[in-house]
Every structure is written in C-alpha cells, then in structure tokens.
C-alpha cells in the first residue's frame, strides 16, 4: 500500500487500540462491552493485514489461538466463581471488594469499580474476540500464501 495509507494506518492504530480498550473497560457503564470493543480492535488486525500485508503477522497466528483459548477459559473460570451458590452467580457484586461497590439507584455518573464479575468477564470476552476475529481475518488472508500447514 502507498505511503499515505501506511502513515494514516500508523496514526489510526494506537487511537483504535485505545478506543477499543475504553469500550471494553467501560462496558458495564456505557454502551459497549467485550464483544464490541473486541470487534473494534480486531478491525485493526484487518487494517494491518490490508496495509502491511498478512505475511507480517504469520507468527501472530499461534498467539491468537492461545489467547483465544485462554480468554474462553478465563470466562468459564469467572462463571465458576459462583459455583458455591449457582453457576454464573455474580458473587463479586455488592461485596465491597474488587469491583464490589454498590451503585446509587437511578441516573448517576457511574462508578468504574462496580458490577462484580461483569468487567472481568468483559475483559475475558474482549481478549477472546480480539484473538478470535483476528485469527479468522488472518487465516482467510493467509490462505494460499504458504502460511498454512501449521497444525493447531
């Protein structure tokens, strides 16, 4: 791709990364969440593939699959936190500890340290979606370019 595209992409990448992280982090307060933020970041993978070529990311493929599995495992582990009561019980909410602040009822400015397991699950799902969608984009882009053939 031309210099213009590459320069713009270099500017957009950190901004997009920050925006994706913001969307994931504030999922329990504002519109957004793990899936949406993950999709924002995964679109950056597509941007890299288009601008710089997929060959640059061949080695990232393994990392993507590892991160995706870890994200899914973390999600299940967070759901297992509540197994003392029921599976998927939100035990951290209103507990006073990590993400355990109660929120005032009605419209309010929002407290980041609230909502129990929700922010953690947002992060787990966020990483999972980044890695998953990134891997799909990468696999489709690398297909037929000699990058395939790796098992697992």
């Amino acid at each position: 791709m031309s210099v213009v595209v590459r320069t713009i992409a270099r500017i957009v990448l950190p901004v997009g990364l920050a925006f994706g992280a913001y969307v994931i982090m504030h999922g329990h307060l504002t519109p957004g969440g793990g899936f949406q933020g993950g999709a924002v970041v995964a679109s950056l993978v597509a941007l890299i593939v288009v601008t710089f070529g997929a060959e640059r990311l061949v080695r990232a493929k393994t990392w993507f699959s590892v991160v995706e599995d870890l994200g899914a495992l973390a999600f299940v582990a967070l759901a297992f936190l509540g197994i003392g009561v029921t599976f998927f019980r939100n035990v951290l909410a209103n507990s006073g500890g990590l993400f355990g602040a109660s929120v005032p009822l009605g419209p309010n400015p929002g407290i980041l340290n609230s909502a129990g397991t929700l922010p953690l699950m947002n992060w787990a799902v966020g990483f999972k979606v980044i890695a998953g969608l990134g891997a799909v984009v990468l696999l489709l882009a690398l297909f037929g370019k000699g990058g395939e053939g790796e098992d697992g």
Partner: protein
Amino acid sequence: MVTHAPVLAIVIPLLGAFALPLWGKLRRELRDLWAIVVGVFTLVVALVVAVKVLGGGEVWVYTLGAASPAAAVVQGGFPIRIVLEVDALSAFMGVIALLAGIVGLVYTLQFLREEEGKTLAMSLYLLLWAGILGLVYTGDLFNFFVFFEITSIAACGLIGYRTWESRPPEAAFKTMVMYTLGGLLVLLAVGILYGEYDALNIAYISSKVTGGLLDRIALGLLLGGLLMKAGAVPAHMWAPDAYGEAPPSATILLVVNTQAAIYGLSRVVFTLFGGVLATPGVGWLIAAFGVLTIVVAALMALVQKDLGRLIAFGAVSQLGYMLLGLGVGAASLMTGAGFGQVALRGGIFHMINDAATVGLLFLLVGVVQRAAGTKELSRLGGLGHVLKAEGGLFLLGSLALAGIPPLNGFASKILIYESSFHLSPILAVLAILSSILLLAVVLRAFHSVFLGPKPSVLHVERTQWGTILAMGTLALVIVVFGLFPGFFVKHLVDPAVQALWAGRADYLAAVLGG
C-alpha cells in the same frame, strides 16, 4: 457438587474443548489424556442426572446465577434467568448423547491421524458433544437457539474435516446453509413468542400460549426450522452428503444431533404448544413427513454407488420412523387413544436404537475406507477374507437397521408399525415396505463389500483396538436391546414417554411452582 450436575454436564466438555488446543501445544499424549479425563467426568455427571431423573421421576430444575438452583421465578411468579430443565425425555436424550459421545471419542483417539489436524477435530468434537447436551437440557428458548447454533457450527466444521478432497467442503457448505436457515427460522419464532409474551422460558410461555394466529405462525416456523435441521425429506439434501463425507467418529454425533432436533420438535409440539393443540393436524403433518422421509430415503438408498452415502440414506430413513412415531403420538394426544402412547414409545425407543445401529455402520464404513482406500461399491469386494470380525459386525448392523428380529431395530419398529396401523393402515404399510426395501439394499451392500473373491492387490491395515472396542460396545447395545427390550423400555423409555404424554403439567410446575 451433585446439585450442579446438569450445568456441569454441559460445561465440562466445553471446558475440555477450550483447553484441548493448549494441551495439544504442550504434548500430544497430554491432550489425549485430557480428552479421556473430560469424557469420563462428563459420563459420570450426566449419568448422575440420568439416574436421578429417570429413576426418581422428578424434573430437575437448575437456575443459572440465581440465589439457589431451585429459585427459578422471582416475585410475581415469572422466570427471568436461564433455566436448565431436565425431565425424563431430556435425561433419555442425554443418555443417547453419552453413549454416542463416549464411543465416538474412543474411536476418534486412534482413528484420526496427527497430520490431518487431530487436535482441532477433537476440539470441535467436544464442542459438538457439549452442544447436544445443552440442547437437550435447556429450558429456555433463546438458549435452545444458541446451542442449536453451537451444534450447527461444530458439526459443519467436522464435516469439512477432509479439506484436501473436493467433496467434503461442498457437503459442509450445503449443510451449513440448511442449518443456518433452520436456525434463523427458530430465532424468528423465538422473537415472535418473545414479542407476544415478553418471556423466553419454555415452561412459562407454555403456560401463557393462547393458540392464536401468532402462536400458530411461531409453531410453523419452529417446525420448519427443526425439520430442516433434522433432515426430513423436503430438506434432506444435506444429510447424506454430510454423513457420507464427515469422518466416521463425527458422524455418530451428527446422527445424535439430528435426533436432538427431533427432541426439540417433540418439546415444541408436546410441551410448548401441548396445551393448545386441539386439532391432530400437527401430528398428521409430522407423520406425513415421517412416511415421506422413510419412503424417499429408502428409494434413494437403492441407487447409491458409494457405501457411505448408502448407509447415510439408511440413516435418513430411520429418522422417518422416529418422526412417524412422534407424529402418530401427537395426532392421538388429544383423543387420548392408547395407541398414541405405543407410538411414542416406539419412536423414542427407536432413537437410541438408531444411534447404536447407524453409529456402528458408520464406524464400519470408516474402517472399510481405511482398509481398502475407497468407499465406492464397485471397487470394493472380498474384504470378508481379511476383516472377518468387521464383516460380522456389518451384517449385525445391517440386520438391525432393517429391523430383523431379535435385534433392537425390530423391537422399536414393531411398536411403530402397530400403532401407526391404528391411525391409518397406509402409513404402516409404507413403513413396512420401505423396511423390506432397506433390507435388500443393505444386504446387497454387505454382499458387494465383504463377499466375493479375495482381492489380489489390497493392502489392508489392521484395525486398532480402540476402534474395535468402540464398535463392540455398540454391537453389544444392539444385541442386548434386541434380546431384552422389555427391561430397557420400562426403565429408560417409559419415563420419557410419560414425560411427553402426561408430563406437561409437571414440566410447568417444576419451574413455576404449584
């Protein structure tokens, strides 16, 4: 931990599938060990569910994320969270999924080859297994759709497993289109029901349905989507391709997957709309689809030149028998005629028989293909000289498929013939004739594969012990279920039949209380 058994039965294979690729990156032996551990744990947990529900006769409700598993409803008497609801029918389907899943897993461990992507295929296999278990255990309509899609995607990934050949990706694409379309119809119906009653719980919606026009439209969409997934005849094009091209260890789960669609069908007809179906029209419709499926698939099996596709059409035809049983049962539900119960007993008993019989035949197709390098009937022959035990098993499976006494296929088909004769003799006659036709077809296949002169240029690979173990288990099921059908009908099938026939009130009361 016993109180959490229903959810653990779904989550353990899911967890196994998530972690499997990581183990595969470390060491392959660890990965196989992990798969075995996951299989054993799932077996134990789901057996706990089955024993408690089938033996104790209760409906097991598990509310995810509530203050206690039994607290399904909130103040005001309506459920808000996802509820897993295991009644006898769900538990029975869980037993089928367990049988097929464990056997397929044992077979997979040795049958698939490393260089062909065994890790990924095993991961998808566990996902499909978890999806089927979730599909039959859930008591929430949208959750049902989600598991429907999990099974669809995992199944299609497995069908496209042999990606270096040209036919499997095509079969997988075709299957994917049909599955997705079916899933979207189901989702649309869920949306309509949600818009009408502002609820997603099956029991709660069932207590509210009025049988108005919207309900009928939703019922039609659900029937359409589920019949597409089940592969009943107007939408059967994908099924033989999928069964024929998927790796055999996955095919046994694909068969259970279609049965799970039939489970969904019976859940919709008997539970969700069980209170308002005043006309036997729906039952007749399902029975008609069933007979059409039986006849068309048996005729199509006649002209097949590929062993896998031949067995696949046999499998599609077996599916018709289950639909026929369910349809006859639904048609006579309102009149309360006794033969409806017999029909349901036949249809439900046939599910487990079909899983064992068709599963065994597909596993054998895999062995034959591995041994002879081809599945085409014209190029096969004389394998009985080398694969003696396999030949015997194939004959056993063929006879059971065609419903010859004293094997298990006969035990369930006779119930279906008998009861459908009461509803309309033509149904029974068509079903019996197709069964005879099928017998001719499978015997011809047996003849052309295993009999004949010993082929001169044949490098036959020895069958591994794992595959023998898997096939032996299924053969044991076929013989034992055929010899002692009374025992199994009484303890496995009858609770499930009662859950459909008279269990709607219990199903609703288990969630809503009172």
